[in-house]
């Protein structure tokens, strides 16, 4: 894919990424990730 179609696709994806991030931040996504990452993940370390 080259030229204008690619340009449109990339711009759409960039706008989508920014919108998703903004919606996620407003929705408390940052806090959810923080809560999960700040506690030991038993599955990750192999405790189940």
């Amino acid at each position, binding site marked *: 894919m*080259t030229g204008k179609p690619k340009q449109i696709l*990339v711009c759409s994806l960039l706008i989508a990424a920014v919108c998703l991030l903004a919606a996620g931040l407003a929705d408390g996504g940052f806090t959810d*990730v923080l809560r999960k*990452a700040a506690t030991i993940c038993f*599955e*990750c370390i192999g405790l189940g």
Partner: protein
Amino acid sequence: MKTDEKKKKRFPKLSARRYTQLIAAVLYNCNVKGFAEGKIFKGASKGLCVPGLNCYSCPGAVAACPLGSLQSALLSSRYKVPYYVLGTLLLFGLVCGRFICGFLCPFGLLQELIYKIPTKKIKKSRVTRALSKLKYIILIAFVIVIPLTKLSPGFCKYICPAGTLEGGVPLALANADIRGMLGALFSWKVFVAAAILLASLFCYRAFCRFLCPLGAIYSFFNPVSFFGVKVDKSKCTGCGACVRACKMDVKKVCDGECIQCGECRGVCPENAISFGYKGPGEAKRTPKTDRQTEE
């Protein structure tokens, strides 16, 4: 002259890529105190995801793993749409693509260092190219379907070698309580991690090529990412030297398997390959060398 050569052998010059990989690995895991105490970092930076695969249960980790966060978000997706994690992954992919695998992944660095140990190496072939599709199956099955249906982070729980090596082993060594809880699942994960590291000795970046679901996600963005390796179409003759020199299972520069390490720049006889901004809409020509590169 001889002393210079000896020095060069003893202290081989590190490439800019190697420096970047080392700096990224250190920055991701700069909570040194955590390794001694056997506790993980709980600061606000853990609400942010790093671009590469780096377990957030590593005592040194100061930020979150994007893949772990995605699975965790999918676990609770019945109640909440995971906008934040999806947006983060989309942004990382769009800006860098698999440049992240080549430059910003600590587990990729570890595999490359292991591969440097001199042994007989397995070269890329039709078999490795077929195996490289496995990571997409793992992405669908372990990262998406299992978290959505079985309500457990399938990849973290059953496969992730970064979790075992960065999280499980250091925590078990430093924390007696955790050591006391180890069981069959930990043994399984140690076996998987050991098998992957052993495979990396003979096969270049075995985990990245065949198993890594994060690489699979970023591979979709490789053709449209803003930064990375680009080919000057006016110089490229389509000789295929780049694809033959590449240790990944690429069919052309910058396809889904390309980790954008830029090693091909040195072998291009026309100097057509470079790093930089690949602006939207910029036309590229890459050599069609599928048949030429079969080994």
